[in-house]
């Protein structure tokens, strides 16, 4: 009896310590934007108000502050319910903000146990606020337009996989640099425009969506993505291009010492289907695809070389070459590797196997 009372007392006393957050008494924010304008940080939070079915609408809260940490408390002063970030799905950084560095945010996210590591991060060309306003205004019932857009493009299109976890991994890894999806405002719509590249948490450049296909392959993501290639010189624009769809690709890196210099051989094997192609390719008897294949390989190699060149010039390593080299080198030294990195001889070699021609899916 006394033991029972003791238990009950402990239960009640300890129960008082837990901080409960009943789901209908908090303001769940799903998207967050950070901007830097006129020496002030601007924070934008998108929160949904749930109504029946299609009546659900995203709403916005905006505030500005001279410091970053102050933004969420300041947002709270505009909200009827306590703001909770546990359901965050996307954080968007304005380009200016990203150029000043996003470590402050990611560092706090890394330690925040409420936020899942599946959170998407992204960079907006202009201001993040503007972009979020557009998505909030759209009559689509989808309160998670941007996160879904990123997810869809990662799963079936050219965007390499990114999320908070991968960002932090690449950020803290000595041999690679992080990258994030890059958005632009196009009229009344938001468009994914490629990949934003970071060095030490600062935005330094970007890669187009077309080139991000190559990035995706070089990162070792084996499936999905489309790539358009020029294969002839006949007539109008659309008539001499083929649309390549990646079915399965595998990059193989090889680190070699060539005299005094190091070289990196990158051989990529792509199994691709040709989705759309000009009608003249269909001539009976002629084995035109062999020719097309050669052209494709050449162009892919060239574009890869250009991409590597660009990374080397920017002194960034989003592909994690440093990590690869570390894995095959004893006593790898970060300093000396990246001193050598801009002059590294990287030799991409592409082989394309065309399968599935003719009938589309």
């Amino acid at each position, binding site marked *: 009896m006394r033991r029972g009372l003791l238990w009950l007392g402990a*239960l*009640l006393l*300890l*129960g008082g310590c*837990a901080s*409960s*957050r*009943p*789901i*209908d008494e*908090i303001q*769940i924010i*799903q998207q967050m934007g950070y901007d830097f304008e006129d020496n002030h940080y601007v924070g934008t939070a998108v929160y*949904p108000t*749930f*109504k*029946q079915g299609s009546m*659900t609408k995203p709403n916005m809260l905006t505030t500005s502050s001279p410091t970053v940490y102050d933004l969420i408390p300041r947002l709270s002063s505009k909200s009827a319910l306590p703001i*909770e970030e*546990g*359901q965050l*799905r996307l954080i968007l950084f304005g380009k200016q903000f990203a150029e000043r560095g996003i470590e402050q945010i990611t560092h706090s996210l890394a330690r925040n146990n*409420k*936020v*899942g590591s599946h959170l998407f991060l992204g960079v907006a060309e202009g201001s993040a606020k503007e972009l979020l306003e557009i998505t909030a205004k759209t009559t689509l019932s989808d*309160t*998670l337009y941007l996160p879904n857009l990123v997810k869809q493009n990662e799963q079936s299109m050219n965007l390499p996989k990114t999320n908070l976890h991968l960002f932090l991994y690449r950020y803290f890894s000595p041999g690679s640099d992080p990258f994030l999806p890059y958005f632009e405002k196009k009229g009344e719509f938001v468009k994914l425009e490629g990949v934003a590249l970071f060095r030490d948490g600062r935005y330094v450049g970007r890669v187009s969506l077309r080139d991000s296909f190559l990035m995706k392959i070089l990162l070792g993501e084996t499936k999905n993505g489309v790539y358009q290639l020029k294969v002839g010189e006949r007539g109008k624009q659309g008539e001499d291009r083929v649309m390549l769809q990646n079915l399965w690709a595998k990059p193989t890196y090889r680190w070699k010492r060539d005299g005094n210099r190091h070289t990196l051989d990158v051989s990529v094997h792509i199994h691709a289907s040709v989705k759309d192609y000009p009608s003249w390719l269909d001539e009976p008897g002629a084995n035109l695809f062999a020719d097309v294949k050669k052209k494709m390989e050449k162009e892919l190699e060239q574009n890869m070389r250009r991409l590597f060149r660009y990374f080397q010039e920017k002194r960034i390593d989003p592909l994690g070459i440093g990590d690869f080299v570390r894995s095959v080198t004893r006593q790898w030294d970060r300093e000396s590797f990246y001193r050598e990195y801009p002059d590294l001889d990287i030799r991409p070699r592409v082989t394309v196997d065309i399968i599935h021609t003719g009938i589309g899916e």
Partner: protein
Amino acid sequence: MFVGLFSFWKKKKKHPPQRPISQLWETLRQSSDFVELSFIVGGKELSIYYFDSLVDPQVLQERILCHLQNDIPNHPTVRLEDLQQIVPIQRIEVSEDTALIEEKVLKGFVAVTFREQPNKAALMSAAAENLGLRENNDSENEFNVVGPKVGFVENVGVNLHLIRRQVVTPNLVFREMSIGSVSKTKVVIAYIDGVANPEVVQTVTQRLESIHFDIVFDNAILDQLLADNSRTPFPLFISTERIDRAIYALVSGQVAIFCDGSPYAVIGPAALFDFFTSPEDYYLPWVLGTFFRLIRFFGVMFSVLASPVYVAVLTYHYEMIPEDLLGPIIYSRSNVPFPPMLEVLFLEITIELLREAGARLPTKVAQTLGIVGGIVIGQATVDAGLASTILLIVVALAALASFTTPIFKMSNTIRFIRFPFILFAACWGGIGIIFAVCGLLIHLGRLQSFGYPYLLPFYPFRVRSFRDTFIRSPYSETAERPMFLRPQSRFRYDPNAAKQKRDIDE
């Protein structure tokens, strides 16, 4: 006069003084249904005593009175001990023991005394055994679609008959005893000698013998008095009204206890997993049997955990709600004025009320009540904003899932243990649920049934006995009895013959 009622006093005295038999008749004469006939036949003065309400008049007239009156004149020297030659009734007993005579007369025996043997009485059974009792039982409380529909009835003799009809072996042993200072209920222990562990049989006998109770209304009372731990909400013995289940238990080496006046057999030692098996599992192909058994286990887990998880997630862990579910949950909760715990308690208690009311009402009314309660109250609760739609579904499914347990006692337990879980979930969220689960496991691990661990074959771990827990293995694999019961003989049937493949050319 109150000797019967206060006989437990009597037991304290070492040797109660023997009362004269006449005093007994004096005591019994107070009841109006006690009949005393005295007459003289062939020069013999004899008296017959019986209770009118307990005796079958036909037996009394045709077997006893008729023969006494007609045949005694032909045997002038007959003594009480010789009555068996005259009266065609089995097992006539002659006794001087007043206590025995009293008990037998109270059980529907007819006592015959001769003038020249004043302290002795011949006891002849003329009890109307089935008077006022059910003749048959369709085992509707433990219903199976496939399999026999006959269940045990209140008459223990019939029950023993039903068992012996299928277990045709001299090793089937029935041990009878009488329990209850007032009711003197006939209790029978049944086991198969050479299969059941003698230690278990001894434990059961000992425990039954040491029971001091006045009236045994039902086997359920014995069940509680026998239990190793009286504080647990878990039933420690299976109680079943199905014959197939009882026989299966006997064959596996368990012991069954029957009790006059109860249509249930109490079976022990029982493990937790026995409560989730249904005889139907064995009548269906093993794949289906296994599937339904797994569904049942899932149902139990769901039933216990669904509403606590709802409480925990909505109160503490909004982070883990999938994004597509966020809208519906928040929307349906937006009008509810209570915290999730009160909302859940409100609905759970509503369902418990419905179930309790349904059980107390006559069947026809209960059906209507079920519909009114289920549909009208449920819908109205949501419309009135007292509970959310999603919770209504969760609670209804949890209630439904708790009905899948084949043994009623276990399903009651499952109904009950949900509430502490909800309390823990409301106090500490997910950690609270884990805490409650741990507490439950600790409790289960400590339970025993006739001295056997309750969590067998999980704790202690017995791999070979898993053939018949989660999976109902095919009959080629189940020849071996569960070894944790320590049966005296290892196989139920020839395991090699069961495994033989019958090819076409044989």
